[in-house]
């Protein structure tokens, strides 16, 4: 007999209770409905407390001292590295480099891996990328004479992996694409990307900024070489993030930033490099923030992320349905991205004919709803749609039906005034 499946309902109110900011009253009276999680997620009490406790009890610089605090701080910092490694299912802890965030991680690869490229080599990106996975490569192109090529985007707002055969040639050394789009929420077909890269011996970098807040990632199963993430999008502090790199790949790269901690020996003429990950962590790292990121990962590990995903997908469905019913003959609402929750995350961008995203967002702010409007650092993609910007609602596991209803009611009100 099959074992009965135990369905544990996701207790969103218990989760919400752990986020002090969700009790905020805006403008002195309106409850906060935070739907800007793709930009920055909120922080639970456990993380706030871990950050405070670190600075109150273990604050010291890492690696340099032998005194008790220095050792405690180093232990805490390295424990955070272990947690990131676990979250990503990295083979080894030394594959985790702390950075300032996703942007820092991608710039690190664009410089360190970029230094190994020769004029005429190619890097393949897509038309859906966040500027942080585009501009570093443009800078590299201008510096090193490499060529950039771009995968297209399907009608549905997904990276068009059908372009891979045509774009990935023997000259391709790296494919760098987003794991989950911060505009359309679409999940990239990573397997197809990795297959194409392997046939020509190219590396693969995934921008995981939007993925890492939705439960553990398995970089080994994904088969990629680099993975970038930001703490502040996964319930941790700002100012820190991580690059995961396959050990043998990282170990083959020269440093990017120079300074303390990343060297083995230094003379006035010459230095030799430390092993990974220290080679890529010049200077004092964001220690407290890394500890906070570790606490955020611990916190996430204590949540049933599968149940949370079902919960947020339900809410996202409710938004998609709501947008459909708010639209009509004289209110043209266009959802940018997949129209169902299949193979996507709860990031929903939409455009309303005749209503500017900033007006929509400002009016919704009056209803306590935090929404984002603009090009979401994906200007080329918006250009391709013929739009200057979109409005975006993005969900995290602490959002509830009340948030969605406040959003839909507020939007109805805003559109009544604006269109």
């Amino acid at each position, binding site marked *: 007999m099959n074992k009965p499946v135990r369905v544990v309902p996701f207790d969103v109110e218990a989760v919400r209770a752990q986020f002090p900011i969700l009790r905020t009253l805006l403008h002195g009276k309106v409850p906060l409905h935070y739907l800007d999680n793709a930009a920055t997620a909120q922080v639970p009490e456990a993380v706030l407390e871990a950050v405070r406790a670190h600075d109150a009890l273990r604050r010291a610089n890492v690696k340099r001292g032998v005194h008790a605090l220095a050792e405690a701080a180093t232990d805490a910092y390295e424990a955070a590295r272990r947690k990131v490694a676990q979250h990503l299912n990295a083979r080894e802890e030394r594959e985790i480099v702390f950075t300032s965030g996703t942007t820092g991680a991608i710039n690190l690869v664009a410089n360190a891996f970029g230094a190994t490229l020769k004029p005429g080599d190619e890097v393949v990106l897509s038309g859906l990328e966040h500027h942080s996975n585009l501009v570093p490569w443009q800078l590299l192109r201008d510096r090193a004479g490499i060529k950039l090529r771009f995968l297209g985007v399907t009608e549905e707002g997904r990276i068009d992996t059908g372009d891979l055969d045509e774009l990935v040639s023997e000259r391709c050394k790296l494919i760098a694409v987003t794991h989950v789009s911060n505009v359309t929420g679409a999940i990239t077909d990573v397997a197809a990307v990795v297959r194409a890269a392997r046939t020509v011996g190219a590396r693969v970098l995934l921008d995981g900024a939007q993925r890492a807040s939705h439960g553990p990632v398995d970089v080994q199963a994904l088969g990629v070489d680099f993975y970038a993430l930001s703490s502040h999008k996964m319930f941790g502090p700002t100012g820190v993030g991580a690059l995961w790199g396959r050990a043998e790949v990282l170990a083959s790269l020269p440093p990017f930033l120079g300074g303390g901690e990343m060297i083995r020996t230094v003379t006035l003429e010459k230095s030799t490099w430390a092993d990974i990950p220290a080679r890529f962590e010049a200077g004092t790292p964001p220690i407290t923030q890394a500890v906070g990121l570790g606490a955020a990962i611990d916190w996430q590990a204590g949540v049933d992320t599968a149940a949370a995903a079902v919960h947020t997908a339900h809410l996202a469905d409710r938004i998609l349905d709501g947008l459909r019913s708010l639209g009509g003959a004289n209110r043209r609402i266009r959802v940018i991205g997949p129209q169902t929750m299949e193979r996507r995350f709860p990031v929903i961008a939409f455009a309303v004919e005749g209503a500017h*995203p*900033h*007006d929509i967002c*400002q009016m919704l702010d009056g209803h306590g709803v935090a929404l984002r409007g*603009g*090009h979401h650092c994906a*200007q080329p993609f918006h250009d391709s749609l013929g739009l*200057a*910007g979109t409005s975006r609602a993005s969900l995290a596991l602490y959002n509830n039906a009340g948030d969605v209803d406040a959003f839909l009611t507020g939007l109805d009100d805003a559109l009544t005034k604006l269109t």
Partner: protein
Amino acid sequence: MDTLYKTDVLRLAAQATGAGKLADATKSVTVDNPLCGDRVTFDVHMGANSKIVAVGHTVKGCVLCQASASVIGAHAAGEDAASLEAVRESLKAMLKQGAPAPAGAWATLGTFAPVAGHKSRHECVLLPFEAVIQAAGK
């Protein structure tokens, strides 16, 4: 709640005075707000002694930006770059220092007084001025 979107602002935006391209433009300038991707184009027809005869604007932007362009559309004729600069400075002072609204013909700009409390939106109101001043300049 929506103090920014008082009916006056919405009305100004809807009136869109001066919207459209000028067939006989002396000069046309487009400016962008890199933060939000908004784009304003002002065409100007300049007369003798560098005074504006007519303007036409194309706004890809929010209601505040449209309303501001509409005010310019209604009052720009007869101004030159320097006098528009002075108007912009008093508008800026209203938004940033709580100074009183400009007097005289440009008093309508007082409609934007509630924007003062929303720093991120100041540029929305100022962008059309940037465009028309550049267009009217040398």
